[in-house]
């Protein structure tokens, strides 16, 4: 039953990665922008939610305010800094957004300090839920899974069933043509970026009560998100979803079971040191394996 619980944890980590990866991959697919500062928005979401929750005492209100706040910060960053980067090459984008990360981490450290903040799950979300007879699972983590899957479904509907989604798909395949057909491409960019920022903020505020809220937390999730995107294929939301669940599972199950598994074939002391080392490398090895066979990821978008 431990396996089931860890599998759920893996799924929970996976949907978290998906919330981040969806925004990043959309922004890349449409604006051709590599945004390292995406993790900073996640961090901003977590800090805002923690602070608003402490101020208002209402979790739901804090969630709404933090989402709006992150959206605002995201749009501001887009207007001030990122807008000029769309036409630049990837090297420029990487360096400039790296500069933004330094700025945001330091800004957060100035306002909230370098020590990690801890916040707790509200009482009405702190129990356990029965998933199978005899298997309990924390309500809050189950909620994250639910929210993540719901967002995935909504995104799918948005992209495939609405006019905005049609423009997003069109923008991803040929930007110049969409602009020539009279669509306000600037507005579309800001919209997509804002959507991505809100998703990152959502991931961040959900993460608040279960991970440490501290400067640099964005990069801890950003790099696994890159792995997800590379595995899934850059620009593909479907790829981001599959990649996120796979990476979430592999990472979580690896950390939980690799050591006892190795202990059955190796000496205990060897397993003791090899287990965690191998577990932390697992998702990167998976990425290398996928790339060896499919250099464009599992769901290539032809870019």
């Amino acid at each position, binding site marked *: 039953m431990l396996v089931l619980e860890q599998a759920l944890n893996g799924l929970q980590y996976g949907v978290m990665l998906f919330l981040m990866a969806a925004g990043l991959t959309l922004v*890349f697919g449409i604006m051709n922008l*590599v945004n390292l500062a995406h993790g900073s928005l996640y961090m901003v979401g977590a800090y805002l939610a923690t602070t608003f929750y402490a101020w208002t005492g209402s979790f739901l209100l804090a969630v709404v305010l933090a989402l709006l706040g992150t959206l605002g910060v995201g749009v501001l960053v887009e207007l001030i*800094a990122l807008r*000029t*980067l769309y036409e*630049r090459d*990837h*090297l*420029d984008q*990487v*360096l*400039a957004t*790296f*500069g*933004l*990360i*330094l*700025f*945001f*981490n*330091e*800004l957060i*450290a*100035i306002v909230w300090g370098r020590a990690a903040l801890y916040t707790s799950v509200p009482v009405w979300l702190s129990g356990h839920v029965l998933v199978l007879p005899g298997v309990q699972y924390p309500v809050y983590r189950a909620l994250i899974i639910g929210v993540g899957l719901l967002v995935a479904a909504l995104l799918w509907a948005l992209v495939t069933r609405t006019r905005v989604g049609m423009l997003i798909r069109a923008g991803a395949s040929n930007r110049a043509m969409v602009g020539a057909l009279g669509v306000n491409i600037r507005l579309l960019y800001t919209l997509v970026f804002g959507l991505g920022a809100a998703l990152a903020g959502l991931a961040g505020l959900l993460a608040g009560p279960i991970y440490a809220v501290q400067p640099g937390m964005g*990069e801890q999730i950003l*790099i696994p998100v*890159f*792995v997800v*995107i*590379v595995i899934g294929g*850059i620009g593909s939301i479907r790829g981001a979803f599959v990649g996120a669940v796979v990476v979430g599972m592999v990472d979580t199950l690896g950390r939980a079971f690799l050591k006892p598994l190795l202990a059955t074939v190796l000496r205990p002391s060897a397993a003791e*040191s090899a287990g*965690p*080392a191998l577990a*932390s*490398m697992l998702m*990167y*090895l998976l*990425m*290398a394996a996928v*790339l*060896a066979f499919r*250099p*464009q*990821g599992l769901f290539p978008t032809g870019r």
Partner: protein
Amino acid sequence: MRASPRAIAVGAGLVALALVPLAASALNQPFYLDHFRRIMIFALAALSLDLILGYGGMVSFGHAAYLGIGAYAVGILTHHGVHNGFVQWGVAIAASALVALGIGAVSIRTSGVYFIMITLAFTQMLYYLGISIAQYGGDDGMRLAARSQFGGLVDLRDGVTFYYLVLAVLVLCLLLSHRFVNARFGMVVRAARSNEARARAIGFWPYRYKLGAFVIAGAMCGVAGALLVNHTEYLTPEFMHWTRSGEIMFMVILGGMGTLAGPIVGAVVLLLLEDVLSGWTVHWQIILGPFLVLVVLFAKRGLFGLLPRPSSHG
């Protein structure tokens, strides 16, 4: 033949670096000796990155990996009682070349943004590997019992001797890089950068040449890693932290990528700037971050790139 402004600047810069120990002892500021030694080590790392970034067009966001491999090679051998510098540095070069071969073989199959993310991810993997190996210090790192020993030939325990050794290695690598970029091999790498399809059309297989350049750059950075761990006398996975990769990349851009002296200028300016800023405030990164953005947006050619080019190719 009249020397170009760039050649004069390079010569003057190297002479200035050679005079640092004299100035430090004259001013009774031994701190500068340490500081410039560190700067030159990072200059070497930045130079090696520029070979693939500036000349090869490969945006590797994981160059700190080789810094770490070189450092770990020396640190692990020292931990097991091997103090011979020739052995240590030989292993450091071989190991970083080997790791570069592995990472390069997978990464160079891809291009563009995939390449950036993959090189970053692999370096992160090595970083976590360093953290999880408790035997060699894990998260906390470990002290280096002694600096590399070269059998009485050079004594690294003496700060000034060590300084000049680093300078000599830097100059040597600068000369090697000059040979490299102007040799046939380097020409193919540069051709593949400006137009890979054409390079292929005239009969080259760019993958091989790019991989070769990637391995050479990795090995050179491995030397920088071996020097760095001797300099700090402390081995830590922080050498491979991804912000380190970003910092090295920024040095290349700041100084001027695609020039050999540029990365060195960039290393000097960035590390001195960090020094000045951190003297002002502990929150110096809040100034450095936007500065970086501004350099990228408005001064892409870098400081060294501001000097006029020599009339022939350079």
